[in-house]
């Protein structure tokens, strides 16, 4: 079991969500986040004073999948979230020890 954590452009969320849904991924967690990477920030102006904003709005999508699906899902996210410009984001993969479905108490890979 692995957790795939993708930091993507907010504008790509719908595409990624649809692609995962089509692939058969039933659950995901989506969070609004701010962060920085290679992409430069922008400036904001308030009453004639400039402020540089380095942290930009991104979307974090978290999906936990069976080991055998990891490669497919990562590829799927990477291709749908890609624009080719700096700022497309990153994908991180973590091992997951266990998972529990709260409603029934059952545990293991089958619940994801």
């Amino acid at each position, binding site marked *: 079991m692995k957790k795939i954590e993708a930091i993507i452009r907010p504008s790509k969320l719908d595409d990624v969500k649809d692609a995962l849904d089509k692939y058969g991924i039933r659950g995901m967690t989506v969070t609004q986040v701010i962060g920085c990477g290679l992409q430069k920030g922008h400036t*904001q*102006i*308030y*009453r*004639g*004073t*400039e*402020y540089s*904003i380095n942290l930009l709005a991104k979307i974090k999508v978290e999906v936990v999948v069976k080991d055998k699906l990891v490669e497919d899902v990562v590829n799927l996210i990477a291709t749908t979230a890609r624009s080719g410009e700096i700022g497309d984001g990153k994908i991180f993969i973590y091992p997951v020890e266990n998972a529990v479905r709260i409603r029934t108490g059952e545990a293991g890979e089958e619940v994801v």
Partner: protein
Amino acid sequence: MRTRLMQIMLLGLSMLFALPGLAWAADAPKIDTGDTTFVLISSALVMLMTPALALFYGGMVRKKNVLSTIMQSFIIIALVSVQWVLIGYTLAFGPDKGTLIGGLDWLGLTGVGADPNADYAGTIPHQAFMVFQLMFAIITAALITGSFAERMRFPAFLLFTILWTTLVYDPLAHWVWAVNGWIRNLGALDFAGGTVVHISSGVSGLVAALVLGKRKGHGSEPMLPHHVPMTVLGAGLLWFGWFGFNAGSALGANGLAVSAFVVTNTAAAAAALSWTAVEWLHRGKPTVLGAATGAVAGLVAITPAAGFVAPLPAVVIGLVGGAVCYMGVAVLKAKLGYDDALDAFGCHGIGGTWGAIATGLFASKAVNSLGNDGLFYGNPGLLKAQIISIIATYVFAGVASFIILKVVGVVCKLRATGEEEEAGLDITQHGEEAYHDAIVGGSLLKGVLEAKPSAGKSNQPVGQGF
């Protein structure tokens, strides 16, 4: 000035109708229903400006301080309303004592009733004039709060406000507008409050910003407006209310009121354009906050001139007002490094000063025969009177505010602690939060309450009662 105008108009009317052999019938004052309606509606419009200011200022602070900023304006409506009825009105407009202050004859509004007072407004009930003037006293105190936003403790703010209104606003209103006030005797013109309202609040705000010091982290961390749409809504409502402020200052439903209405709108529009244009050239973007602030700067600038200038000079007053205030806010403030958080001085001090000077330049008897001609109409004397009135207001408001703040500082702590600033004034001063970002259910809140022995005073971990 408005009052002298009404006085002379009334005298003129009485002479018109006086027939030989008859007594001066105009001795019994006659109420005009149109004028009374107009002044009451104008009073309500000016009242709305203070909640509007609360939104204008509230949108510009960080979200942890929005309630405390709104509260300062809102509670001033209540505080000054009571002060005005008890003692404020008589200090400002009561029978003159030595050109400096009103006597206590009208304490608690004794004798201020439904009959007109011909000295101030001969065609409306005296109480209508009183309540119109009350709204000016309210908004003036509220304007100052922009300078010390995000760091002044609420008890100190209350004490400062009540002392400032009583010891600065009331005498100043007397000097400029009351019968035999010394600045009025000088011949200086201030139609709706360039010196009394805007310079006085702006300069007092600057002094307060200097006495309190900068906000924690000022200059090193960005302090961005948390809700620009709220500020723009506030600016729109201020613009709307300002028609009552300026046109209402004619104290009658007449041609002068219309003229003041037209120049008010014109100057606000011109200043919104000029601020936007200057910021666009200077920083590369035409900002919404800039357009809204520019409009307010134009309204400030036209205020003293509203009853004395024609529409074309109003365009100039607005264009210059927007640009000058922009320079004050974006360049001067940054150079000098004071933390006038929401630019009470930058907009009202600087805009009011320009307006008072502009009145000395552009005033014309062709617009208002009871006013005077300015420099551009061949009378340098008016400009001199304007400048004396500006200097007097700067010195009086600045020195008096400094002393009041020092006295308040002895009685109670002026400034929030670093920890309180960090947590925000909403939670620490008022025990409330404007926006609940985290889901805090009853059980979680209960945990906090149990953990803190001071739970009876405040349900917030850093709360501090007074």
